[in-house]
C-alpha cells in the first residue's frame, strides 16, 4: 500500500473515508449479482464518525462494532481484501466464510468484532476496558453503537457499570436518526440521547458527525479522560444514513426532502474541500487519492473472487477446542 497507514495525516483520514465510501458503495450491486452472502449494511454518510473516532485512538486500543461495521474496520486499519472475501463467504475472509458481513473481527488491530445483535457490543467493550485496567496496559476501549442500541437494556447496564467503575471506555453513539425504520425522535425518550450520560455520572458530548476533525477531537478528549482514570464518556455524533438499512430496504419511512439537507453535508466532499482550501492537499493529489482508492477496491474484488470457497467439511472445524 503506497499511502501512509497512520491516521496522523489528514490525507490518510480522507483516504480512509473515501475507502469506506467506495467499499460500501459496491454492496447493492454485489448483492444484486448474488456475490454477497447474507445481509450487509452500508455506512455511506457516516464515514466521518468511524474515521474520526479511530483516528483519535492508538493502534492497540479496542473497538467494538455493529451490524453496520465495514467502516469501523477500515477506519481501524483493517484489510479490505479479507473483509470483501468474508462478505463473499470465501476461504480468505476474516472468518473463513463462516460469518459474513456482521462477524468481521481483527484482534490484531484491536477490532473486537462487528455484531449482528443491536446492543451486542456494550458488554464486550466494557470487558475489554476493564481488562486494560487490570492488565495496566494503558489501552482504552471504544464501543460504536447506533441510536437504536441506546434503548437496549444492555446500554443501561453497561453505562452504570462503566460509571461506578470509571472504566477507560468511550461510548460512541452514531446517531444516524434511524433504528431501521424507527425514527430517533419517536424512539428515544428525553430528546437528545447525550443527556443519558448525566444520569450515569459521566460527561456526554455532542459532536457534528459529518465533521471528521470534530469527531477526532471529541474522542481524543474522551481518551485522555479515560486514561487519566476519570472514567467513560458518551460521545453522540449526529450523522445520517444516506442509504437504506440494508440492500432492498424500501425506505418508506422517510422522504427525499428530509434527506436533501443531509446529503448536501456529505462529509467526504466537505473534508476534501477543506483540505484543498487550507492547502493540505492539491487537486492533483486528491485525484490521485481517488484513483488509489479505486485501485484498492478493484484489488479487493479481485482478491475476494479469486479466493476459493471453503470446503464443506470446514463447517465441522473449530467446533470445540
Amino acid at each position, binding site marked *: 500500500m503506497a499511502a501512509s497507514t497512520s491516521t496522523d495525516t489528514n490525507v490518510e483520514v480522507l483516504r480512509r473515508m473515501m475507502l469506506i465510501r467506495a467499499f460500501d458503495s459496491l454492496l447493492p450491486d454485489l448483492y444484486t449479482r448474488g456475490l454477497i452472502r447474507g445481509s450487509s449494511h452500508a455506512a455511506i454518510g457516516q464515514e466521518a464518525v468511524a474515521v474520526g473516532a479511530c483516528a483519535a485512538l492508538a493502534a492497540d486500543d479496542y473497538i467494538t462494532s455493529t451490524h453496520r461495521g465495514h467502516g469501523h474496520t477500515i477506519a481501524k486499519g483493517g484489510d479490505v481484501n479479507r473483509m470483501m472475501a468474508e462478505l463473499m*463467504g470465501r476461504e480468505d475472509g476474516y472468518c473463513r466464510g463462516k460469518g459474513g458481513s456482521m462477524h468481521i473481527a481483527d484482534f490484531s488491530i484491536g477490532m473486537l468484532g462487528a*455484531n449482528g445483535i443491536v446492543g451486542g457490543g456494550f458488554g464486550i467493550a466494557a470487558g475489554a476496558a476493564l481488562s486494560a485496567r487490570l492488565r495496566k496496559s494503558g489501552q482504552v476501549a471504544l464501543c460504536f453503537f447506533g441510536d437504536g442500541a441506546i434503548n*437496549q437494556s444492555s446500554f443501561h447496564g453497561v453505562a452504570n457499570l462503566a460509571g461506578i467503575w470509571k472504566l477507560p471506555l468511550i461510548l460512541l453513539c452514531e446517531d444516524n436518526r434511524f433504528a431501521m425504520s*424507527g425514527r430517533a425522535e419517536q424512539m*428515544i425518550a428525553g430528546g437528545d440521547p447525550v443527556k443519558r450520560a448525566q444520569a450515569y455520572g459521566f460527561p456526554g458530548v455532542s459532536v457534528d458527525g459529518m465533521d471528521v476533525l470534530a469527531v477526532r477531537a471529541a474522542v481524543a478528549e474522551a481518551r485522555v479522560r479515560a486514561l487519566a482514570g476519570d472514567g467513560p464518556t458518551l460521545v453522540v455524533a449526529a450523522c445520517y444514513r444516506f442509504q437504506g438499512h440494508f440492500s432492498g430496504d424500501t425506505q418508506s419511512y422517510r422522504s427525499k426532502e428530509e434527506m436533501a439537507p443531509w446529503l448536501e453535508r456529505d462529509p467526504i466532499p466537505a473534508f476534501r474541500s477543506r483540505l484543498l482550501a487550507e492547502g493540505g492537499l492539491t487537486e492533483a493529489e486528491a485525484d490521485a487519492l481517488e484513483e488509489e482508492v479505486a485501485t484498492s477496491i478493484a484489488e479487493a474484488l479481485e482478491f475476494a473472487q479469486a479466493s476459493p470457497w471453503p470446503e*464443506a467439511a470446514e*463447517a465441522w472445524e473449530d467446533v470445540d477446542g
Partner: protein
Amino acid sequence: MSTHTLSLLEAVREGLADEMERDPRVVLLGEDIGRLGGVFRATDGLLDRFGAERVIDTPMAENAIAGIAMGLAMRGLRPVAEIQFADFMHAAMDHIVGEAAKLRYRTAGDWTAPMVVRTAYGGGFRGGPYHSQSVEAFYSHVPGLKVMAPSFPDDAKGMLTAAIRDPDPVVFLEHKRTYRAITGPVPDGEHVVADGRLRVARPGDALTIVGWGMMLHEALAAADELAGDGIEAEVLDLRWLLPIDREGLLESLGRTGRLLVVHEDTLTMGLGAELCALAAEAGVLQAPPARVAMPDAGGIPVADAMEDAMLPNRHQVVEAARRLVSSPGNGEVRPGGPGRGSWFDAAIPEASSVIEVRLPEVHLELVMAAVAEACRAVPQSNATFTWEAIRLHDQLSVDLDLGPLSPARGGGTFTLVDYGLGGSLLGLPAVRPGQTAALRVGAVRDGRAYVALAVDHRAVDGADAGRFLATLKRCLEE
C-alpha cells in the same frame, strides 16, 4: 369447505388481521412492524388498517417488548409481540422464561399472561450465525409456555388464532424459508386449530418420521423418495412442540415401531432427545431411534457449501430412514427391508470423518485400490475389535454396498458403500459387527465427491481416521 390459497407468510398476516377485526383487545408490538410492515412483511398494511394504537412500533429493546407484552396481557389485552429474528430473542428470554411462563403457577392460578411472541427462525438463506438460529429447544424446556411451530399455511393461520386466544403465553415459531416457499389452501372465514394434536402429513407404516417447519417439508420430500424404494414412511408434523402430542406420537409408533426425528435445531438436548425418550419409555420401539439434526456447532456458517453441508436435508433423512428400516429390530425380520439380522450393532461407538476428493463418475476400481492402500497404511481399519485385542486381518475383503438393489452381503472385513450418482452427496456409513471401519462415497458432482469414513472408535482413533482419508485422497487423486 371452501378455501383460498395463501403463502405461509400471508396466512400469518391474515390470522393477525382477522383476529384483530374480531377482538379489539388484540394489539401488535415489535420492531419495524408498523410503517415498514415488518422485515418479512408479516404485518404489511396492518398499521393503515388498525392504527398506531394497535400496531405499535417499538424501539430496539427485545426484553422490553416481551415485558410490555406481559403487562398488557395481565391487564386485559391480547398482545402479539414480534421478535424480528429468533436470534434476537435471547435478549427477551428473561421476561418470557423468568416471568411470563411462571405467572399462572406463582399466583396459584389467579393471574395468567395470554400473550403471543411470534418470531422468524431457521437458516438456509445465507443469513450467517446471527440470523439463522432455531430456538425451539430453549423454549420447549419451559413449563408454563406453549410452543407452536406451524409447517403449512392453514396451520399458520389456525394455530396463530388459537395462540392469541390461549390463556397462557405462547411462543409462535415461523420458519423463514416457509414464509414464501410454502403455499397451500386455507379455509375461508374463521379458522382455529386449537386441538394440540400433531398432524399426519403423510400416512405410512414402515417408519415414523417426525418434523416441523421447513424440516417437515424435507421429510416429506424424503418420504417421496423412499416410496420409490417401496418404503412407506409416515410423516408427522409435530407442530405443537410444547406440550407434545404424546398420544399421537405413540399411536403412530405403535404401528411402525421405528422413529426418526428431524430438526434444524442442534442435536444435543434438542427436541429429538425428548421424542426418543417418550417413545423409549412407552416401549413402542422395535429398533433404536434415529435423529437427523443440525450438528452441534457454535453457529450456522454463511458460506454456501458450509451452510448446505450443515443444514439437515432430505438426503440425510432418506439415508437415516433406510438404515432404520434395515435395522433388525427386536428379533423380528420386517418384510420389505434388507432385514439381515446381524449387520447393525448400535453398541459400536462410532466416529466419522469426511473428506472431499476429486473423483471421476466411474470410479469403483479406483476406490477399491485406494481402500487397499489406506488399509495398509492404517491396519487397524481392517480388523476385528474384541475386548481382549484388536485382531488385524492379513487379507482385505471388501463388502460392497451399492444400494437397495445390491446391498452389502454382511461378510468381508471392510464395508464400502457407494450408491452412485443417484445417492446423496454426503452420507455416513455404519460400522458392521466384526469390522472396524466402513467407507461411503457420496455422489460425484462436478468431478468431486465427499467420502466419509466411519470407524469403531475402540479400534481406530481420530488421527488414524485422518491418515486413512489422507492416504485415500492421495491415491484417488494421483
